[in-house]
């Protein structure tokens, strides 16, 4: 339990710094910045209380909103992802994921890919809907979700596999 707190604190700070110093400077093709910080929410221990993660993801989002001047779009997207996470986990790991004490980092590659992919869809959809904030530009929202989503997926997946304890490929 104590180990979990240390690990997650490090992950929170580490991902925030990674996002700030590296990811937000990539600007691939002029506008694609992977939003790698959502890994914190994806990889958070499943058995922990949901409301702690709600607060943590809100804090994470607001910090990113502060320096990106996006109002509260990151926070809204992160909080929404946290709220739907149990449903996504149920979808990927089956009904009894809580009993079996599943850990995302220690599961198989296809499941890691699936849970990251689903989380990205939820997060990016909410984020870009709030950023563009115009129903007429649905196509733009979907396009950005897809294109930036692929970039986020690529970076997040590589990072997760790199740090996963099961070094199996």
């Amino acid at each position: 339990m104590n180990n979990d707190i240390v690990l997650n604190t490090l992950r929170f700070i580490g991902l925030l710094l990674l996002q700030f110093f590296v990811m937000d400077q990539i600007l691939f093709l002029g506008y694609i910045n992977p939003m790698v910080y959502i890994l914190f929410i994806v990889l958070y221990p499943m058995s922990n209380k949901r409301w702690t993660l709600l607060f943590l993801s809100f804090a994470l989002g607001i910090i990113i909103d502060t320096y990106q001047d996006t109002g509260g779009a990151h926070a809204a997207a992160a909080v929404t992802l946290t709220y739907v996470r149990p449903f996504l986990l149920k979808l990927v790991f089956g009904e009894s994921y809580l009993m079996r004490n599943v850990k995302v980092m220690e599961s198989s590659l296809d499941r890691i890919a699936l849970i990251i992919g689903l989380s990205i869809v939820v997060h990016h959809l909410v984020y870009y809907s709030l950023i563009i904030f115009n129903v007429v530009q649905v196509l733009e929202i979907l396009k950005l979700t897809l294109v930036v989503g692929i970039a986020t997926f690529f970076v997040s997946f590589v990072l997760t596999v790199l740090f996963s304890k099961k070094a199996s490929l």
Partner: protein
Amino acid sequence: MQNIINFLIKYRNLLLYLFLMILSVAFTVQSHSHHRNMFIHSTGNLTSSMLKSRSDVYSYFHLSERNKVLQRENAVLRMQLLAAGDTLLGEETTRIFLDTVPYRIMPARVIKNDFHKRDNYITIDIGTNQGIKNDMGVIAANGIVGLIDKAGPKYARVISVLNSNMSLNAQIKGTSTIGSLVWTGKDPYVMNLIDVPRLAKVKKGDTIITGLQSTSFPPDIMIGTVKKVALIDTGSRYDIEVKLFNDLTDLGYVNVIKMRDERARKRVDTLIVGDE
């Protein structure tokens, strides 16, 4: 009572989620309107010093380009100075730098620059301590950049012209035709000049400059060239695509313009009496 407490306990996650969601959506909605973004902004001390240290690292990658831009700007300024020196006599050349100049220019470094969002903001490293106030104009070597949107003590946020809330007064050079310059949110090199009447004489390649109506910019600051002209609204108005002179995706240093007569002009413009 018991029921209410049970209900609260049962749905605590949902309620917490809704609360946080409403809070962040409120912040977002607020951020979509100019000058109302009060809480979440990048001019605080901690955020700005983080942005500054990031910019310190990344600025090394662009040193040679920045040098070239500064050299070119210096050359242009030197030419203007020589031209001005020609028309002035003796001692008067030095007076150019006295208090009588209508505009003061303050240099600043860009520590954060966005151009890939719909509402873009730039953060610069000078603030109210250096005399920065809201609504001052910001220009770079080749033309306009934006307006000061929120000035903190040491840092200030600039609302970039690449922002859906921005609308600037602009003029076609050589004529007195004016229009509003807006950004559609697609291309960071192109803006649109709208509300230009049908009778205006405009053609491809014309230069667009800042208009006389602006209280933030001096007149005749370069904006861009006309790229495409199209009649809209059944031919009653023009929609003109303007290619910007400034590369807003690559900003190193900018200049903030302080107008000497700003208050007087605003007072005349709005005819507010007893303001002071």
